[in-house]
């Protein structure tokens, strides 16, 4: 086996040194009747070339080279090549959690820079070293608000990513946290009246997303006012990090739960991604997840360590703020490098291009289908309703090697034939025109079929 660095003679010598006669002696602690005496029924040992070939075939089956208009919490942005060049260095890739600070300063300093940039971008005072993903970060942020307020219930916006809502429901059920939902209005934004009605004296926090699941930018200032008037904390989820380049961050929030996948992390069929929680300094001791802090060593030299570990499970066990143990360090490093590459000016320009493509696309779609939620600003996603079910249109788009918008009926039955479309800096004008052309064709054929029926009826 090519990963095992021993010759048969080495093994023999080592067995002898330990005073054992055979390998079987090593396993005598396992009762004989539970020792496996046959081969595992798994694929045979494969050569590296066969493994590469096997995964290439899976890649073909997955469809390569499609132009996609899918967003909905997972975004295709360009990944600068320096990201993979740097994260492939064994010193980053094959290191453990930086508990031994003296030989982990590389990881620690890069996380400190990550925390700093997340603070800058979100307008918060502290950010952690990352969480599993945006959905679990949102659930953890809610539990944090529950601890901080001593209240148990939560109001969640229906315009929050539906799968984030499902994850919250799973966590909340067993924590005995009642969850109520506030709907959205004709502009796609949280319905403030419904929200106010849903808040009770037991409400710990309001959880919302901006830009929300429909791509609409919420009126965070108004929602924060409302929440704070009732002594309720505001948790804002951000699923599309690139928006932070041009959209004012939700500075009025008490906790921000973010998904940073857009910053240089491959789509990878849904993971691994990079959640982050950012908040005010005064709440830091109730924050879940690892934190890196600056300190000095015994010679007075600047260095970095994991800190405030007394919140964490390996010290506090069942009294910890969370059971979370790992963060997403290597993914956070991708995010860190991405933020460093684009920086102060590039992130803004990147966001501006996303906005421009989306304005163009939404404008073109509006000529043939109906674009919903026009009354509020949006970032890089928009909702289109069509006469034909979106699945049918998407089937035809697949024939042109294009993946159309996400049909929303599964998550929002009330929206009928609506689908959620996304444009990023990688979406070309010609792809938009082709997609719009197919939607237009669909609308024309439905209309003429309808006219035919009416003709016959007459």
């Amino acid at each position, binding site marked *: 086996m090519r990963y095992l660095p021993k010759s048969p003679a080495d093994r023999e010598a080592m067995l002898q040194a330990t005073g054992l006669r055979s390998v079987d002696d090593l396993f005598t602690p396992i009762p004989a009747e539970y020792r496996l005496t046959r081969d595992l029924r798994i694929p045979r040992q494969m050569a590296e070339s066969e493994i590469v070939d096997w995964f290439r075939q899976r890649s073909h089956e997955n469809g390569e080279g499609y132009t996609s208009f899918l967003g909905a919490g997972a975004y295709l942005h360009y990944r600068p090549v320096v990201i993979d060049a740097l994260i492939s260095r064994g010193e980053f890739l094959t290191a453990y959690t930086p508990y031994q600070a003296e030989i982990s300063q590389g990881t620690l300093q890069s996380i400190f820079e990550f925390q700093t940039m997340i603070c800058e971008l979100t307008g918060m005072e502290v950010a952690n070293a990352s969480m599993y993903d945006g959905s679990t970060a949102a659930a953890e942020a809610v539990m944090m608000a529950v601890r901080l307020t001593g209240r148990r219930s939560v109001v969640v916006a229906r315009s929050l990513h539906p799968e984030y809502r499902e994850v919250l429901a799973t966590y909340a059920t067993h924590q005995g946290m009642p969850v109520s939902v506030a709907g959205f209005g004709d502009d796609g934004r949280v319905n403030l009246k419904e929200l106010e009605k849903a808040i009770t004296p037991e409400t710990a926090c309001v959880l919302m997303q901006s830009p929300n699941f429909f791509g609409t930018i919420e009126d965070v200032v108004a929602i924060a006012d409302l929440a704070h008037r009732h002594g309720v904390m505001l948790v804002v989820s951000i699923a599309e990090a690139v928006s932070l380049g041009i959209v*004012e961050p939700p500075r009025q929030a008490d906790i921000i739960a973010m998904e940073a996948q857009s910053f240089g992390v491959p789509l990878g069929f849904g993971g691994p991604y990079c959640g982050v929680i950012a908040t005010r300094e005064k709440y830091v001791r109730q924050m879940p997840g690892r934190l890196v802090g600056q300190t000095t060593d015994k010679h007075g030299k600047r260095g970095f360590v994991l800190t405030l570990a007394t919140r964490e499970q390996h010290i506090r066990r069942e009294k910890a703020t969370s059971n979370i143990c790992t963060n997403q360090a290597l993914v956070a490093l991708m995010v860190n490098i991405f933020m460093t590459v684009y920086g102060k000016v590039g992130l803004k320009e990147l966001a501006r291009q996303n906005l421009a493509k989306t304005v163009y696309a939404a404008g073109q779609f509006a000529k043939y289908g109906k674009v919903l939620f026009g009354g509020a600003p949006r970032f890089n996603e928009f909702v289109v309703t069509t006469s034909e079910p979106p699945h049918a249109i998407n089937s035809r788009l697949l024939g042109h090697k294009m993946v159309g918008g996400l049909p929303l009926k599964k998550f929002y039955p009330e929206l009928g034939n609506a689908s959620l479309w996304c444009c990023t800096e990688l979406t070309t004008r010609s792809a938009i025109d082709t997609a719009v052309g197919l939607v237009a064709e669909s609308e024309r054929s439905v209309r003429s079929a309808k006219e035919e029926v009416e003709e016959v009826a007459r």
Partner: protein
Amino acid sequence: MRRMTRKATRHASQNEGLIFEKSSAGKAAWKLPPLDVPEVDAAQLLGSSERKDLGSMPEVSEIEIIRHFTRLSTWNYAIDLGMYPLGSCTMKYNPRVNEAVARVEGIANAHPYQPERISQGALRIIKTLSECLIEITGMDAITLQPAAGAHGEMTGLLMVRAYHQAQGNARKKILIPDSAHGTNPASAAIVNYAVENLKSDSRGMVDLAALEAQMNEDVAALMLTNPNTLGVFEQDIIRIAGILHAKGGLLYMDGANMNALVGKARPGDFGVDVMHLNLHKTFSTPHGGGGPGSGPVAIKKILEPFLPKPVVITHPDGTLGFDYNRPQSVGRVRAFYGNFGMFVRALAYIQANGPDGLRQTTEDAVLNANYVRKGLEGVYDLPYSTPTMHEVVFSDKLQAKNGVRTMDIAKRLIDYGFHPYTTAFPLIVPGALMIEPTESEPKEELDLFIEAMKSIAEEVEEDPQTVLDAPHSTRVSRLDETAAARKPVLRWKPTS
């Protein structure tokens, strides 16, 4: 007096400040293509939601970024540099073919919501890995959705709770041995179960009499790590399972130490009802400085209705798909389907090994731990003489007489060119040195490690101060953690 070490030599390492300290206006590492659609007026479109300024975000060039992160990387220790004997962490070699196949275009760029028709490859990867892991664990079904080990624990306990609820009583508590990982009690708390400690006996194993006495209809499950954190196989496992099952409880196995069992024994065969695996331990996906992990949960049939949704199914026409229609499911524990990129890597590892390679891997891991044990017995105190599987736990009892504790020995090991072992864990061993070499170490590296540990033991006798002041060869030494926690500085701030 400084001893010579055969493994490491000091050499110059580059200094490097924070990236913000290199930033200046007008430098850039990015270039966007010309816009092929009309320009927009953000102020007009976004109104008060328009962001004007990005604060202190850096402005640097590409070469500076490459140097910055390359310099930082050289300050890390890594498996690629040498032995990483962290007990219970299974720091094994991370094969590079895993990384290569995870970056194949149709895999790396697959969107989680792309139509099933063009997701067959991804679904096949999920299904094939699931089948392999079910066979390896001897269980009946599996979910790959949990993002890490602790997340898997939570998911497993959610299923335990749902199972008991379906029987009419969710029950109140989880039994956890005092040798368990900290995540076990923390996960039980997240699922709103009370935690009751179970003490270990003189062999370092579950005390059967205590278990018998504490087991009743309020206990939902026992969470057991096997081999446990002493590296000891729970020989009474089948009686433990019997005691639980007799009172309707379930046996949860923390699979953190599965590297001792793969291909040699299957938890499903010895009474385990639910267990999680750590793909980043046993199945070679890289730790990456603290993540991403992946924590699949394998279960027996009785728990199948409660699996998180969606689950992968085969349609009548032979194609694969996701099934969301699972009325008894505990729900979702994460958006999308889990850390898919880690599934790809774990499967590539299983393929590279096959049944014979996995068995040999386990044998080598156990052989390595026993070899280290033999080499250091007598030099360091061995609190439990029970046979060792994949890891061995010593204590600092002999060295403590000279005022040297496990953390000091660990720090001195750095000077000898090794990453420290796990210190001060498990909690049942005061001053623990927990050593897990894994299968990835050749005999030569193990000999150097044993030699280093012996040399440090001699230093403790002759010149304890050298050990107490260690490490001597690193960029920074003995960072002030108390100050860091008392007045936390968690971000850089511009000095204006």
